[in-house]
C-alpha cells in the first residue's frame, strides 16, 4: 500500500498528489511514468511523473479527472492508501546540452513537461516554454514553468488568459524568428496537439520529441497493448518510450487506437457517477 502524502487541487478538474514511495522517488527521472492501481478492483493506469523528491521519498502525480479511475483517485484524501504503485517505468528523457529548446505542454501535459524543462535548463539549454489549455481554469503551474524557462508563452483556446491561440501558433513564430535557432522541441499533451506540433516542426526539420500516452495495462512490455506504429515498425510505448521521435509516429493509427475503449470508459464513468450519487444520498439521509 502506498500513502497519499499530499493532495491539492490545481484546477476544477486537475489534481496534484504526492505519493509516499521512497524506492520510486529515489530512481525517478524526468520523462518516466508510474503505473497506479487504486484498489483490488482497479485498472492499472499510467501516470507521468510530474516531480519527485528523493529526500521526502515522494513522487508527484498530476491528473485530470476525466475517466472513472481518475475521478475515483480524485476523491481520495491525504492519508488514504492506494494498492499499487510501480515504477519508475519507461526511459528517462535524454537530457543534454542541445542549445535552444522549446518545451510545449498542453493541458494536463504541462505537468510532465515541467521536470523536462527544469532538467534541460539545468543542463545549460536556453529553454523557451509554451503552455496552453482550453481555458484559464485548466491552466496550472505558470509560476513553476516560469522559474525554469528563459521565456514562457501562455495561450488559451478561448483567450480567457494569455494569448488566444493554440500552442502551434507561437511555436511557428519561434521557428520563423530569424534571431533564434531552435535546436529541439519537446511536446507533451493530448495526442492531437502532439500531432500538430510535429506537423509544425517537420518542414523546419527540427528534432521533436513527444511523450505518448497510449492505452496500457502492465506497463512492463508484457502485453503490447501500448504499441505504436513508427515509420520503421511497431514499438511498445511502455518500454521503448514513452518518448519518441514525433516525426516517425503514425498519428492517425495512434489516435484511432486511443478511441478503442471509449464506450467502456463512458460506461464505467457513468456507473461511478451513479454510485457516488447513491453514496452521497445515503450520507445525507444518514
Amino acid at each position, binding site marked *: 500500500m502506498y500513502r497519499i502524502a499530499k493532495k491539492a487541487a490545481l484546477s476544477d478538474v486537475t489534481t496534484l498528489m504526492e505519493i509516499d514511495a521512497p*524506492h*520510486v522517488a529515489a*530512481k525517478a527521472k524526468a520523462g518516466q511514468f508510474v*503505473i497506479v*492501481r487504486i484498489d483490488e*478492483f*482497479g*485498472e*492499472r493506469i499510467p501516470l507521468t511523473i510530474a516531480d519527485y523528491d528523493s529526500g521526502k521519498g515522494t513522487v508527484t502525480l498530476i491528473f485530470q479527472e476525466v475517466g*472513472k*479511475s481518475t475521478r475515483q483517485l480524485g476523491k481520495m484524501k491525504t492519508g488514504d492508501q492506494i*494498492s*499499487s*504503485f*510501480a*515504477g*519508475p*517505468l519507461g526511459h528517462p528523457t535524454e537530457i543534454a546540452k542541445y542549445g535552444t529548446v522549446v518545451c510545449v505542454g498542453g493541458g494536463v501535459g504541462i505537468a510532465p513537461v515541467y521536470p523536462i524543462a527544469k532538467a534541460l535548463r539545468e543542463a545549460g539549454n536556453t529553454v523557451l516554454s509554451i503552455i496552453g489549455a482550453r481555458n484559464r481554469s485548466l491552466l496550472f503551474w505558470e509560476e513553476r514553468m516560469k522559474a525554469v524557462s528563459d521565456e514562457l508563452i501562455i495561450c488559451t483556446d478561448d483567450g480567457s488568459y494569455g494569448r488566444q491561440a493554440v500552442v502551434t501558433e507561437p511555436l511557428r513564430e519561434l521557428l520563423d524568428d530569424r534571431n533564434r535557432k531552435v535546436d529541439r522541441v519537446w511536446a507533451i499533451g493530448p495526442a492531437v496537439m502532439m500531432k500538430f506540433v510535429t506537423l509544425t516542426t517537420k518542414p523546419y526539420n527540427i528534432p521533436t520529441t513527444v511523450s505518448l500516452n497510449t492505452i496500457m*495495462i*502492465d506497463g*512492463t*512490455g*508484457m*502485453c*503490447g*497493448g501500448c*504499441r*505504436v*506504429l513508427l515509420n520503421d515498425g*511497431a514499438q511498445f510505448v511502455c*518500454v521503448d518510450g514513452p518518448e519518441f521521435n514525433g516525426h516517425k509516429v*503514425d498519428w*492517425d*493509427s495512434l489516435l*484511432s*487506437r486511443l*478511441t*478503442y*475503449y471509449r464506450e*467502456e*470508459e463512458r*460506461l*464505467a464513468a457513468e*456507473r461511478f457517477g451513479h454510485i457516488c450519487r447513491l453514496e452521497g444520498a445515503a450520507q445525507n439521509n444518514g
Partner: protein
Amino acid sequence: MADITIEERKKIKRHDMPNQDQFVRRGNFDEVALGYSEETARQEAERCLQCKDPKCTKGCPVGVLIPQFIKALREGDMISAVHWMKVKNNLPAVCGRVCPQEIQCEGSCILGKKGQPVAIGRLERFVGDYELRHRTCPPVKATETGKRVAVVGSGPAGLTCAVDLGRDGHDVTIFESLHGPGGVLMYGIPEFRLPKGIVQSEISYAVECLGISIRTDHVIGRTFTLDELLAEYDAVFLGTGAGLPSFMKMHGINLNGVMSANEFLTRVNLMKAYRFPEYDTPVKIGKKVAVIGAGNVAMDAVRCCLRLQSLQEQKTGGDAGEVHIVYRRSCDEIPARMEEYHHAVEEGVIFDFLTGPIEIMGNGNGAVHALRCVKMRLGDPDQSGRRQPVAIEDSEFDLEVDTVIMALGTRPNPLVFVDAPGLERTKKGTAVADAATGRTQKPRVWAGGDIVTGAATVISAMGAGKRAAADMNKFLKGEAPW
C-alpha cells in the same frame, strides 16, 4: 481391495474426469474439470501396478515419486500421500491441472502401452487440493543461515526456488513487477482451467510457513537493477519468464481489434475484465474472432472469447458469436495440451487447420474487417522432423472477423537485463545459464524457467527453480564456491 491381483488391476477402467456440462460452461468462467471424489480417486489409484522401475517418475521433469504417493492414496493414508508428493513438487494442485501429462508421466505409464495410463495428473490434483484444505504437511524452515536471497519473478520457477531456499533456512525476498504473485499462473492461464483461488492458496501457504516476503510492484531493471540487488543480497535467482509477446510482421497489426494473446489474457485473468464494470478493466471482442496459433495460449484465448461472447449474449440477447483457431499446420501438430483441445472442440471452437494468415484487412475506419489467409499443405520434414507447411498457390481467401488475437509465442522480457553487465543473452533473448545448476555468466546470479528456455511449461520451470535452489544452497553454505 488390499489383495487384488495385477490382472484385476489391469481390468479396472480409467476413471473419467467429471466436467462441467459443455453447453453450460461456455457461459461462465468456473472451472471446467470438477475433480475426482475421494472414492473415484481411490479406485483410480488401484490401477497403478507399482512398477519396480517406475517409468512415470522418469517421465516427470521433476521426478515426482508417483508410485509412492499413489500407494499411500489407495491405502487411504492422505498424510503420507501429501508427504511423498511434496518431496519433489511444491505446487501439486497447480501441476495436476496444467501439466501436459500425456507426454510426461502418463505418456510413460506402462498401462498406456496397451490401454489407458493411470490418471496420474488427476490424482495429483486430488492430493494437492486435499492438502490445500487440510494443510497436513506444512513446509518447515531449517535453522536460519543468515544468508539473504533475492528471487526475481514469482512464476513457477521463482516460487519453487524461493520455497526450497526458504526451507533451507535462507532469508528470501521475492521481487515481482506486477501487483500480485503467480506469473503466468495468474495472468495467463484462465480461471476455468486453473482457479486463481487455488494459485493464491498454494502461494500463501508456502510463503507464510517459510516467512518469505514478496515485494510486488518492483520492476527489476527499473525500480532496482540487478547490480543493486547483488549489493544487498548474497545470491539472486532470475525467474522472470518469457512474457514479451511477438506480433507477426504483417500489414494491419495496429488496427483496432488486433491484440496479443498476452494482452487479452491479462485483461481477462489478472484484471478480471470478464467482470467489467464491477472490475475496472474492460476487454472488448467482437462477434467473430480469429485466434492465430494452436498452443496452450491460443486455446486459452479462444475459450475465453467463447465465454465472453456468451456472457454478452446472456446480457443483451443478440445472436451467438463465432470463434476460430487459425493454424498453419494440421491437427496432429498442435502443441496444446490434448485435454484443452478436446474441451475447445466440445465448446464449439472452429478449427481452421492448414491455414496461414498473411494480412489483416481494415474496414477503412481503423478497425479490423477480415483476416486474409492462404491454404497450406504439409511439405517435407525439416531438421527437427516436423513437416513444414507450404502455401498452396492461388488459394487466398478472406476470413471475415472483427477481432484478431495473436498467440504466436513470446520471448523473455529484456527489462531485467538493463544495467546488468555480464549477464549473457542468446540471440533469441534468453538468458545463458547452466542446465544443471542454473548458474549464469554473472557471479552470484542464477536463472531458470522460461527466461532460459523460452516459453515452455510450468513443470519445467519448477524443475529449473529446484535445481538452481539446490546449487544456490550449496553456494550459500560454502560447499560450492562460484
